[in-house]
Every structure is written in structure tokens, then in C-alpha cells.
């Protein structure tokens, strides 16, 4: 089973250089979005109530 998945992965991503490259680009793109989302959320929760976005509701018309 595991080897079937491995084989599938190999055939899709590693067999041809073009697919390999496309895979790298796509995963870099996905990773960056995921990483930024998570780290921004962590930052915002550490600094809850301190940043402008937390107090702007009080002043926006």
C-alpha cells in the first residue's frame, strides 16, 4: 500500500524534471501561504489588543 503511494508519487512528481520543477514551485507557493498565515496568526495572538487593527474599530466611522 505504502509502496503504491510511493510509486504513484514517484511517477507523478519525480519521473520527469518538468513535473519535479513544477512540484517544487507549487509546494513553495503553498508552503509560503500556509507559513505566513500561521505565523501571522501566532503574532496577532501574542500581541492581542496592542496592534492598530485591534483598536481601529474604536475610531473608524
Amino acid at each position, binding site marked *: 500500500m505504502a509502496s503504491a503511494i510511493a510509486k504513484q508519487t514517484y511517477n507523478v512528481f519525480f519521473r520527469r524534471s518538468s513535473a519535479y520543477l513544477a512540484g517544487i514551485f507549487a509546494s513553495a507557493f503553498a508552503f509560503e501561504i500556509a507559513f505566513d498565515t500561521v505565523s*501571522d496568526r501566532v*503574532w496577532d495572538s*501574542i*500581541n492581542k489588543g*496592542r496592534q*492598530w487593527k485591534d483598536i481601529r474599530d*474604536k*475610531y473608524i*466611522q
Partner: protein
Amino acid sequence: MLSKVAYTTTARAFRASSTFRPVRFASTQAGPFGANRKAAMMWFTKAAAASAIVGYGISNYVLTDDRMAPVYKAVSEASTELKKKAKEFGIELEIPFTVAHAFSTADHGLHPPHYPWDHYSPWKSYDHASIRRGFQVYKEVCSACHSMDYIYYRNLVGVSHTEAEAKALAAEYEYEDGPDDSGQMFMRPGKLTDAMPKPYPNEEAARAANGGAYPPDLSCIVRARHGEEDYIFALLLGYCDPPAGVNIREGLHYNPYFPGGAIAMARSIFDEVVDYEDGTPNNASQLAKDVTTFLSWASYPEHDERKKMGLKTLAISAMLLGLSVWWKRFKWSYVKSKKIVYRPGKFDEV
């Protein structure tokens, strides 16, 4: 110092390996300072004690200050003379050890205490509500004397004020603009692209109005002073009566945190000089804390972004470190699990 036990062990070790040609350790050798290490230690201890006593005696009873004064004087005169001569040839001579620098907190300013600024923590942003209140303090108090040429109204947008608020704040002042079609300069209400209004048209006017002292531009003041936030905060609240014997000239004020102690700026932060819209208590230390936070933001506007970036960098680096450790072990696993076996071939007995 080597203990006695250690000595005997070494000695025994010697005897055990007596089949080899005995080599003597340097420490057990008789030398100029005694028969063995212990004796040498004693010799040095005695020598140190004796030179301390002799040195003390000489400096206090033989080469007393009275007797040395003429020598010092001669040396200093000679070096002054030497410097003068050197200067005639265009050389700035600095003879080491001939100048004494005494440190005095009165001259250099009292070091401010370290305050627990909550934005000092590596993962904390500025408290933007505090920046907003600090701007209010700057606007209502400090801006009467201090400019902030490098802070524009647009800089406040998204930091402490909304765009509409910043526009309204800018429009409270008139700025000179132009020339118009007829070549005339004209006044118009401020825009987001205008800097904080200047209290004085130029430095000379500012000095004339402040008894000769120039109120520095506050745009980068936190960066520009040792002690940064701590110094500004301590300075704003540090005014007190001068100690006995210190005379403060008319128009100056005593502040121990200011180098020299006499500052031309009068105390300007008092309880309740500013009314906060958000209900924060407006006592003097709160006002000082808020205006210092605002000035700190003005000096380091990239602060929040920089810290967030730093944390992301650490997170990515940690992942890469993990990956590279794995990669190293992956590559080395071949070498590490290799077994080298020596199989002697056939050879003739000699």
C-alpha cells in the same frame, strides 16, 4: 595547587611503569624556586606578600605624594613642552597615561533606570493605543517647542489614526505652498503629505525663544540619545531641586539626567495636562510613558514588522536546521554503518 594525594599517585604511577626509562615531570623537578612544586608555591606566596608589603611601604613612606609632586610637575611640564614643540611641526601629540579622565555623573548625566517597556520583549509589538495617546501629548505639549520634520501625517495612518482622522489633523494647520500662477506663495490647509508643523521658522528663531538653547527635532530623538526610551522618560519626569551648592543659571532648570544637570527645557509633563479620549488615567508618568512610546515609534517605525520578520526567520531557520541535520545523517549513514575488517592474506613466516 596539586594536593599531596595527587603527588603520591603520580609517584606510584612512575614506579609501576619502571620498565620504561623514567621520565621526570617538570613539576617534581628541583628548580630555582624550590625542591618541588609545593616549595615553589611557597616561594611565590612569600615573594608576593613581601613585594606587597615593600610596595605599600615605598608608596606611602618613601615616594610620598609630597615628594613626587615636583617630579609629576616636571614630567607634565616636559610633556606640555614636547606637545608644543610637536605642534609647531604640525603634529598633534597625545602622550598616553599623562591625562586623567575622572567620570562624573553630574557631567555625563545620571544614568536612567531601566524601565520595563512592554515593547522591549522580542515578540511584542508597540502598544498602538499608547502611540496614539503619545501623539496627543506631543501635539498638545511638546509641539509648542519641538519640530518633527521627518514625521508626516500620512505616517500616522494605519498606525495610530484612521485616514480621515489624519486628514483632519493635518487640516488644522496652514502650510505655505506655491508658487501659484502669478508666482505668489499662498497658504493652504495641511494635507497627509505634510510633516508635523514647525513651531519656529528656523533654528535661530527657536534659540531666540528658548534662551539660546535649541529644542532638538524629535523625529529620531530616541535613537539619538544614550539610554533611549529610559533616558527620555527619566528626563521628562526627572526635574527636582538642585542639590546644595549647585547653582542653576536663570532660565535653566535642574535635571540630574541631563548631562551637566542644567537644561533649558522647563518641566512640561504634569498630572492632567492632557485629557485622554480613551479613559486612560492621565497622571504625569502615564503621559511621559505614552509620549516616549510615540517618540520610540517615530524613531523605529519598522519595529513591529522587523520583530515579526525576525520571528519568521527564526522559525524557518529552525526548520532548515532540522532538515540539514537529517540530510547530514542520511549522507553519513553509509559511512557510519560501514565496518572495516582486516583480513590478513597469506604471508610467509619470517
